[in-house]
């Protein structure tokens, strides 16, 4: 392996540049714009956090505020009323996310690499074959029948894991990222007598860190935020439902109790609606926001380093 292309870490170059006036100007503008936009992004989120710790009544009275008017943790108590359900939901979602992202990311990168190889004669045909599926889908009933009756995956976590492994969008994106890696790398590998798979694993993957991080993030998010397939394929026989579906259920359960559909004899009082919605958003988002940067670091590093060794 002769070529070892060392991409400069992001941001490194800026420090080497002689700071001319345009650079200073750009820096000032950049900090202003980015900071302002960040504030716009974080303020509503802050309001959500603050409201989740407010009482239902104070929300109705004062609306959303930057600081809870009457402090209350009732929504969180309600969410964690059955802690094993909540912990189970976290565990299921974390495992699904890790496994799905790991496998999916590798397969997507492999496909993306093959499809951008200019000397691969079938690349356009295969690309079309893949892209076509993003335009046409069979619709709900056939897909449901496939999963439940043909693949027999009702009540199996595979019904969530498998359909989300790849998407044509992520493959196209990956293909585009791989393109930026100079073709000489592949050529040099060929000269060294390496096969295509070996070139991909030991020469391409290590150079693909930003792409892997990005697509890994998207893939992880699609697993993390999944609730729709869960609602279709995981019946109540499954003890632990993925996080987002579990949270939706909590919200809807409260809503249905409040409007008790067919007039059961239960008298329900004091169930929070709004603050509960806020609390679920915090509970669902918190971990991935806080943990993702760390996970990502080791995840991508592991994928590429492991690849070099393998």
């Amino acid at each position: 392996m002769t070529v070892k292309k060392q991409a400069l870490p992001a941001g490194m170059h800026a420090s080497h540049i002689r700071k001319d006036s345009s650079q200073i100007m750009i820096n000032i503008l950049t900090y202003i714009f980015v900071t302002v936009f960040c504030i716009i992004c974080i303020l509503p989120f802050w309001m959500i956090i603050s409201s989740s710790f407010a009482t239902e009544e104070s929300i109705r009275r004062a609306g959303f505020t930057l600081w809870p008017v009457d402090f209350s943790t009732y929504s969180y108590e309600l969410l964690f009323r059955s802690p094993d359900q909540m912990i189970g939901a976290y565990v299921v979602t974390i495992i699904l996310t890790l496994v799905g992202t790991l496998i999916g990311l590798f397969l997507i990168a492999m496909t993306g690499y093959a499809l951008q190889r200019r000397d691969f004669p079938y690349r356009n045909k295969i690309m079309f074959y893949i892209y076509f599926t993003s335009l046409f889908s069979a619709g709900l009933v056939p897909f449901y029948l496939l999963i439940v009756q043909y693949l027999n995956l009702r009540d199996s976590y595979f019904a969530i894991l498998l359909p989300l492994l790849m998407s044509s969008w992520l493959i196209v994106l990956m293909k585009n990222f791989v393109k930026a890696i100079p073709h000489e790398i592949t050529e040099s590998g060929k000269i060294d007598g390496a096969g295509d798979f070996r070139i991909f694993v030991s020469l391409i993957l290590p150079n693909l860190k930003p792409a892997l991080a990005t697509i890994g993030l998207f893939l992880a998010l699609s697993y993390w935020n999944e609730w729709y397939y869960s609602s279709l394929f995981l019946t109540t026989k499954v003890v632990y439902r993925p996080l987002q579906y579990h949270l939706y259920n909590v919200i809807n359960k409260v809503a249905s109790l409040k409007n008790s559909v067919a007039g059961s004899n239960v008298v329900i009082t004091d169930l929070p609606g709004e603050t509960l919605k806020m609390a679920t958003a915090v509970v669902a988002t918190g971990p991935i926001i806080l943990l993702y940067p760390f996970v990502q670091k080791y995840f991508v590093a592991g994928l590429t380093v492991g690849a070099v060794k393998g």
Partner: protein
Amino acid sequence: MKKLIALILSLMLICSLLPAGAEGIDTSEHVKIVYLVTGDMPTNRTDEVLAKINELLTEKVNAELEFRWIEWTNWQTQYNLALATQNGDIDLIGTATDWLDAWPNSQKGAFLPLTEDMLKTYAPKTWETVSEAHWNLCKYNGEIYLMPEDNYAQWTNHGFMYRGDWAKEAGLENGVHSWEDLGKYFQYIKENKPEVIPWDANGNGSSYSPQMAGGWQTSHTGNIAIEGFPVAIFYGESKENPYTLSRYYVEGDELVNFAKEMKAWADAGYWRADVLNYTGDVVAEMEEGKTGAHQHHTQTWTSERTTMERKQPGSDLGFFWFGEEAKNLISLNITHGAMAVAAKSQHPERALMVYDLMRNDPEIYHLMQYGFEGDMYTVDENGLFTRPEGFEDATDGVSFNFWWGRNDNLEFRNAELDWDAISAMYAAYDEVKIDYPYGQYIYDNTNVGVFMDNLSNVYNTYMPRIVFGMNDDPEALVAQFREELKSAGIDMVMEEIQSQLDAVYAK
């Protein structure tokens, strides 16, 4: 050797089941009956109770019951998918002609037609207790598809809950009994209670329009709503002449009057300006004294009255029901809740046997509805039940969500509710109510279904604006609404429905 033991065991099993099999019904095979039901998986003691019920069911008909919950998240898709893709995995289906599309689903082949013989043999008690007239209301194309909840007193007619104490202050000594009274009540609140929104409403809910528009209509005409249409504009003329379609929505002044009145109410500020997008918890607001009214049905009022008395002592929550002025009240359609057998059920006979017990066997029924006696509830000599101190339904209760065959002969009344007020209300209803006249009519959408979808869209576009007075010129808006209905094909659709009605009710 093993085989021999198995043989002996199964023989013993058959013998033990002889009472049930005595009429020549073969129950030698133990089967699981899967019951499709809407609701969240309970986190209370339902499983415990189910185990006990399954013991009883095994003993009586050698079957056990298993839930298939359709949880409220995404429930419409889930429910319809379960019906559409069934392959013998479900047996009993909870359904309803109003909120669960029982007739369209019958038309789509989701349910098994039930013959008289089947019902007589496998669900004899149900067969006996439901009258012939009621069975006729469960037929589509001459075949029975539903087993109705026809012996359960409940009223889901809509109206306004209002505070009796504030009504008195407003000079309405006897409470609110007409739209006119309601307007006075709102005006009083507006003028005297600046912190209170007279009626804070969730105008974003799609059901408000038909409820309010239909409410005014039943209060000011003799029109009777016909159920089963995707859009609520098809009414019979009156109880004297029920089988002629009313032309209320295409011509006449009453709809214009309604629009004008609501415009006046909106301008007077009886509800918030952005009512159409408001999603807040309006019931809680009423309980906190922040709003003076809530639009929902009688059943909700019966329990809300108790809650309000606790939270706003002396509030004396009353109920003005739509149709009160015109004494225009229709009994709840008996198929508001019903049980059906899945079209592809592997064990339809046993499913019927199980349902017959759920509905009619006192022991099983009480377990399902209330749980273990003594432990979870007690009943006094008046048939009122009480939960133990600190009882919480979410953890200590039982949830079968059995809304498809409740039975007043076996029901206990909740001791917490104000039965004097409720009985008085029911008595007033009983004086004027008539039976739902269109039970045998099932809308067939083959010819005009396409137009119906567009009518539905026109209705959902205009009606919220009429109902909440969101317009500059109510008269012009109604005219425009009628114009759009016309171009969406209402004349043709009404003609078709009229001829369908004639075909059923022509004498």
